[in-house]
């Protein structure tokens, strides 16, 4: 009898293994089944998962945190706020963990590329979405390379026993080549732009030009090989995107007075010739932001250093030498007769100006307000309320839309975020050209940007040296040093608060020179502030010997100490202890 029981048990166990353990789970889709059935829509949805993490724009909808597009410049010498930025001050310590060292996107892209050919979708769809995946993989690797330098390059999905989990880092030369291979594939596979919110051939071309300029200048200013070739690629790729067949142009729909300002506060960018990729926001479906509600309450301020770079529009010269501007001429006067991008980027303390933005408000038939509060330290009165605040005295207006501020509820901001725009293409063409001694096509590039805001002086091929820029960028490798410096000025001004400055300082190797300077704000003008208010700032915040606000001089106990090592971050300690082959860490860490 006993043996039958054994037999029965044996048979039961065998049956169990036959019937159940090999069955596909009923509640989830297996890998095999997914790829065998994934039609065009499924592939598109697969790609959609990567938009929010890479096409960041103003960040996740319904988030109180400031727009990453704007606040990225806090980590630079462009934009200042209440606290000193640890990274821009070179004070960041070794990271134990780091959100940027995350491989979900790369793994997902590799899984797609290994499997998508099995999908029953049309050849056209497969090609298109593989193009998007190549684009995202390249972008994610580019972001990682900017932060960590050398990286392990992965072309396959790793399983938990794969020895490549413990591989060494590959050199940034290999990483760049691989990124560019992905981008060339994306350019080949993707169609030209039809929907501005979707990745296109145009976006892939811009990303390629951006990567080539970044790495080309990174290597040039560190005496590494391959810079010329990369810069030539940046020059050519930007040139390709400037061809009329791509249909891009600068946005000039509101005249020289408002076009630049209005470019950044549009509800949708479909049909706008300047925008190459944007991120959508729509409060109607609970996907709004609150950029415009946040600005008037934030302490953001343009740095004095950046403020000074906008040229004089009467002479076309820098304000330090134009003869008609000087720092003591008055807060408002100094903003006048400048490259008009200035007043379309910061608020003008004049109730009659179209650029006053949130500094003034109508109250009982009267316009009330004035220059911004400093650090919100002033109480204000009924007669003289403060409607804006800034740590430097220069309140930011770029991206601010008045109708989305007063009286609006949270997260009702509806303006889309311009993530990639044509102006950058022009700046890449000019900079790469000037670095290589090729024609920067100034008339089509820098001077087109100037014409948009009605600036009547053109940049010429041999500009006069600006002592200020020469001290900021003493070591220029290209043939015409002053031309390159002027293009850098143009880039800083045009792309202010769009998250480029940190990358620029790193690739130009200019951080050690520029980020160790004392951060400064405006001179407090007694026409706008009472003696008591000025004294309060002197006591609590501090002025330098020339009378400029020094937002961090008194309150921050340390000075900036940005060194060569700070251009890169360390590999997170948690990762190097899991995989010691990632060592040695970046120099200095």
């Amino acid at each position, binding site marked *: 009898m006993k043996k039958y029981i054994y037999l029965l048990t044996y048979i039961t166990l065998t049956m169990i293994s036959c019937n159940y353990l090999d069955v596909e789970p009923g509640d989830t889709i297996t890998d095999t089944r997914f790829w065998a059935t994934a039609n065009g829509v499924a592939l598109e949805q697969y790609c959609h998962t990567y938009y929010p993490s890479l096409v960041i724009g103003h960040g996740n909808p319904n988030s*109180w945190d400031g727009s990453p597009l704007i606040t990225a410049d806090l980590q630079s010498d462009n934009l200042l706020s*209440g606290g000193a930025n640890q990274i821009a001050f070179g004070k960041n310590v070794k*990271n134990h*963990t780091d*959100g940027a060292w995350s491989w979900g996107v790369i793994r997902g892209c590799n899984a797609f590329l290994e499997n998508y050919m099995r999908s029953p979708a049309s050849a056209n769809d497969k090609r298109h979405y593989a193009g998007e995946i190549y684009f995202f993989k390249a972008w994610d690797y580019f972001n990682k390379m900017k932060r960590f330098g050398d990286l392990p390059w992965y072309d396959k999905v790793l399983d938990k026993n794969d020895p490549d989990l413990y591989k060494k880092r590959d050199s940034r030369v290999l990483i760049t080549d691989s990124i560019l291979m992905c981008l060339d594939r994306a350019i080949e596979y993707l169609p030209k732009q039809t929907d501005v919110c979707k990745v296109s051939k145009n976006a892939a071309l811009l990303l390629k030009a951006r990567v080539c300029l970044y790495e080309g200048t990174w290597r040039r200013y560190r005496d590494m090989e391959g810079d010329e070739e990369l810069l030539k690629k940046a020059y050519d790729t930007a040139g390709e995107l400037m061809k009329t067949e791509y249909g891009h142009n600068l946005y000039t729909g509101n005249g020289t007075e408002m076009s630049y300002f209005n470019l950044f506060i549009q509800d949708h960018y479909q049909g706008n010739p300047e925008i190459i990729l944007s991120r959508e926001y729509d409060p109607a479906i609970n996907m709004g932001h609150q950029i415009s509600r946040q600005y008037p309450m934030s*302490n953001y301020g343009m740095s004095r250093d950046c403020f000074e770079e906008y040229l004089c529009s009467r002479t076309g010269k820098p304000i330090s030498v134009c003869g008609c501007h000087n720092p003591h001429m008055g807060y408002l006067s100094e903003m006048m007769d400048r490259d008009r991008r200035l007043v379309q980027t910061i608020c003008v303390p004049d109730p009659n100006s179209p650029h006053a933005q949130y500094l003034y408000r109508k109250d009982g038939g009267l316009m009330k307000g004035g220059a911004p509060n400093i650090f919100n330290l002033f*109480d204000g*009165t009924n007669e003289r*309320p403060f409607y804006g605040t800034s740590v430097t005295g220069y309140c930011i207006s770029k991206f601010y839309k008045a109708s989305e501020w007063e009286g609006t509820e949270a997260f009702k901001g509806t303006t889309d975020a311009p993530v990639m725009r044509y102006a950058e293409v022009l700046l890449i063409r000019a900079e790469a050209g000037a670095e290589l001694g090729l024609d920067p096509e100034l008339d089509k590039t820098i001077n087109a940007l100037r014409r948009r805001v009605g600036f009547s002086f053109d940049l010429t091929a041999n500009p006069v040296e600006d002592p200020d820029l020469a001290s900021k960028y003493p070591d220029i490798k290209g043939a015409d040093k002053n031309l390159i410096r002027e293009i850098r000025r143009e880039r800083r001004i045009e792309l202010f608060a769009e998250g480029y400055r940190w990358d620029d300082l790193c690739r130009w190797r200019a951080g050690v020179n520029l980020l160790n300077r004392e951060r400064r704000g405006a001179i407090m003008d007694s026409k706008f502030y009472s003696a008591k208010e000025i004294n309060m700032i002197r006591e*609590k915040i501090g002025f330098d010997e020339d009378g400029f606000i020094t937002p961090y001089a008194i309150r921050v106990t340390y000075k900036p100490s940005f060194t060569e090592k700070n251009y890169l971050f360390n590999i997170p300690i948690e990762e190097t202890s899991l995989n010691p082959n990632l060592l040695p860490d970046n120099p200095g860490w």
Partner: protein
Amino acid sequence: MIRINDLKSNKKYITLWYVVCMLFLSCSSSSDEVMVSGLHKGAKTPLMQSVADYMDKIQVVEKDSSYQLTEGLTITEVNFRYLTRPTRMFVAEIDLDKNLSVVTCTPNNENIQDQPQVMPEQMIWAEKAGKDICVGVNGDFAGKYTDKNKFFTMNIFVKDGQILKETYYPGYEGLFVVLKNGESKIIHPKDFEGIKDDVLEAMGGYHSLVRDGEENKEMPVDDITMQFGPRTFVGLSKDNKKCFLFVIDGRQEGYSSGMRLEDVATLCKGAGCYNAINLDGGGSSTFVIKDRTGSFNVLNKPSDGQLRPVINGLVVIKK
């Protein structure tokens, strides 16, 4: 500073909040007979009279009323002008001699705090665990691990006699504690080590607002302190027998813009706090009461337009 954001929350509380707001507007039993305008800047409740008299930066108290939620627990709701801006505030005054106690609460009433939860839900879980709750406010600032979707409380934390976190970050200056003998205190977190065996409840705040009767004049000048923002803060009277829980709404032009932290310190002093500390504010600021029907209602108007999940909170319970 790390903020919790972008977390979904429950819409029903917002609807509830509206209903309850309307309800309380009609049933608040204020001392309406005092109508001498100008005196105490128009304030009618003793609490706001004291605050308005002390605080120069308040121009006028437009509307204030108070009601007793239970014996020893008074709720005051106020609209006032501060630095010309409209401001809305809620205060719970707790008489700790009247069988009431102020204790901590956590998401799901659990000892692990890595996923935040909106206050009314935390309070429901605490009730399920047998506590009889009257009022609750959000608690400590939360940090977030950079590469994980997990949170942690910044300061020391003790609940029901169990020490759940023993460390705190530099700059975190205040700790609200309840000792096992029933006494409530506000101490510096560095002094926790010496008394930790006697502590029943502890929750930290960030800045010290009032310390031994003196307003904190050493407040840092930065984005957290100097913006007009929503605030939550807690204070104790000199004899530690009276506790105050405050919530000020903010970031909503025309309704309430919020308050700078140095002025919050003045307000605490004016209200009679001998010690007071600042808790997490911004979109986290939440003021919840349990009404007569036993449901939890959010009285304030969170600035995100919806309730933000928070890492922990303080609740008033009947002993």
